[in-house]
C-alpha cells in the first residue's frame, strides 16, 4: 500500500539516484525485466502497446476529427458542445479524453495548449506528446511569452489576434480546432485531414493553407 508520504518517497528517490545506472535505456530495461520476472507484466503486451501508439493511435485521429468538423457543421457543433461525446462517434475516445474540450481558432483568437505542472495531453486523439511539449522551455514560456514561443514555431500573430493559452491543470484536455484554410473549397475529408498538422491541434501551428511553403 502506498504511503502517500512525501518524505518517504523523497528518500526512495535519493536511494535510486545513488544506485541506478545513469543510462536511461538500462534503467528502463531493468524495470521491464523486474516486472516480467515478478509476473506483473508480459513483454509481448508491452510490444502491443508500443505498436498501438506507433501505428494506430496518433495525430491522424485528431486530423480526421478536425477535417470532419470542417465539412460537417452539425458535427462541428457537437465537437464544440461536448468533444468527449463527439469523438466517440469516430471511436477515438480513450486515454485521457474523458473530459475533452475543443477550443476554436478564429481571425481574432489563437489558442495554445500547455501543461505547466507535468505533461497532460489528449493521448487517444493526438497520440504520444511531442518531446518539446514536455520540456521545461515550452512549459515555462507558453504562459508568460506565448507570442515568442509561437514565433519560434514560425507563427507570427498580429496584435489584434488575441492568444488564449490553456494550462491543463485539471483532468480537462484541450484540442485546438484550427481555421479551415482558404483554397480548399470542395475538398473532401481525406484531403483536408492531410493538411492538419499535429502542432496545429496543440496551437503551435496556425496557417494550414495548401499553398503554404510553396510561395
Amino acid at each position, binding site marked *: *500500500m*502506498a504511503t*502517500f508520504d*512525501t518524505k518517504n*518517497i523523497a528518500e*526512495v*528517490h535519493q*536511494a535510486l539516484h545513488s544506485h*541506478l545506472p545513469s543510462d*536511461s535505456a538500462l534503467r528502463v*530495461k*531493468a*524495470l*521491464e525485466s*523486474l516486472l516480467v520476472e*515478478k*509476473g*506483473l507484466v*508480459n*513483454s509481448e503486451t*508491452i510490444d502491443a*502497446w*508500443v505498436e*498501438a501508439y506507433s501505428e*494506430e*493511435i496518433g495525430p491522424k485521429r485528431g486530423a480526421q476529427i478536425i477535417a470532419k468538423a470542417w465539412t460537417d457543421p452539425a458535427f462541428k457543433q457537437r465537437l464544440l458542445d461536448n468533444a*468527449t461525446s463527439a469523438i466517440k462517434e469516430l*471511436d477515438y*475516445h*480513450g*486515454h485521457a479524453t*474523458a*473530459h475533452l474540450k475543443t477550443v476554436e481558432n478564429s481571425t481574432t483568437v489563437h489558442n495554445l495548449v500547455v501543461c*505547466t*505542472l507535468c505533461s497532460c495531453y489528449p493521448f*487517444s486523439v493526438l*497520440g504520444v506528446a*511531442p*518531446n518539446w511539449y514536455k*520540456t*521545461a*522551455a515550452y*512549459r*515555462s*514560456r507558453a*504562459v*508568460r511569452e*506565448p*507570442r515568442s514561443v509561437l514565433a*519560434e*514555431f514560425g507563427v507570427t500573430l498580429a496584435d489584434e489576434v*488575441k*492568444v*488564449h*493559452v490553456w*494550462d491543463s*491543470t*485539471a*483532468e*480537462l484536455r484541450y484540442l485546438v480546432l484550427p481555421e479551415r484554410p482558404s483554397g480548399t473549397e470542395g475538398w473532401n475529408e481525406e484531403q483536408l485531414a492531410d493538411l492538419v498538422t499535429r502542432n496545429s491541434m496543440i496551437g503551435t501551428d496556425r496557417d494550414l493553407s495548401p499553398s503554404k511553403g510553396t510561395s
Partner: protein
Amino acid sequence: MDSVHDLGGKQGYGAIDVDEPEVPFKHEWEGRMWGISSCSGSSDWTIDWWRHVREAIDPVDYLTRPYFDSWAQTELAAYVDSGVFTLEEAISGKCQSEAFKAPSPISVDEAVAKDRKRDTNFEVATTKAPKFTVGDSIVAAVTASSHHTRLPAYVRGKAGTVTTHHGSHSFPDLNAHGIEEGQHLYSVAFKAGDLWLDCENADDVIYLDLWESYLEPA
C-alpha cells in the same frame, strides 16, 4: 509541492527545439517505457499520487534527465513505496521473491480496444452547492499544499474571472493521499497583464482549471 516541476512563467530555459522529428519515440527505450506504463501500475496508486512521486524526483534530475527516464524512476519509486519491490530489487532489476502468475499477452488490436476503456471519468459528486458562478471575479489562494497541489505558483494571489463551471471533480490535493473527494472545478481566465509586468499583450488570456478551495471571492 513547491519544486521545479511548477514551471509556469519561470525563466532561463532557453529556446524550444521546434525541428525535432515527428515520431512518437525517438529511442526504443522510450517506447518500452510508454508500453510498460500502459500495462503496469498498482491499484493503490492514484493519478495524483503518481504525479506527486514524479514531482518529488531530485530537482536536478527532474530538469536534466530525459522525460521518459523520469517515468521509469517514478514507477520504480512508487513500487518500492507500495512494498511491491524492495529497494534492492529496484536497483538490481532482479526479482528476489516469489513471482505472480504472469498475465497472458494481448495483441495490438486488443491494446487499441483497451485504450478506449481508459477514458477515466474524474467527476465525483459533492453535496455542497457551488460557491462561484460564471462571471464571478476571484483571487487565487496565496498559499498551497506542501504535498501535491494543482494550483501553480504563477497564479497564486492573482485576480481572475470564472468562465466555466465543470461540476464536481476529484480534488487532487486529497486524491494524492488516496482520498477521493469531489469538489467544484472551474475554468478561470487570467489576463496576461494581471500576471506579468512586462507581458507581450495585456489582453492575451491564460486559462487554468482550478478547484473551488483554491479560490476566494475578489
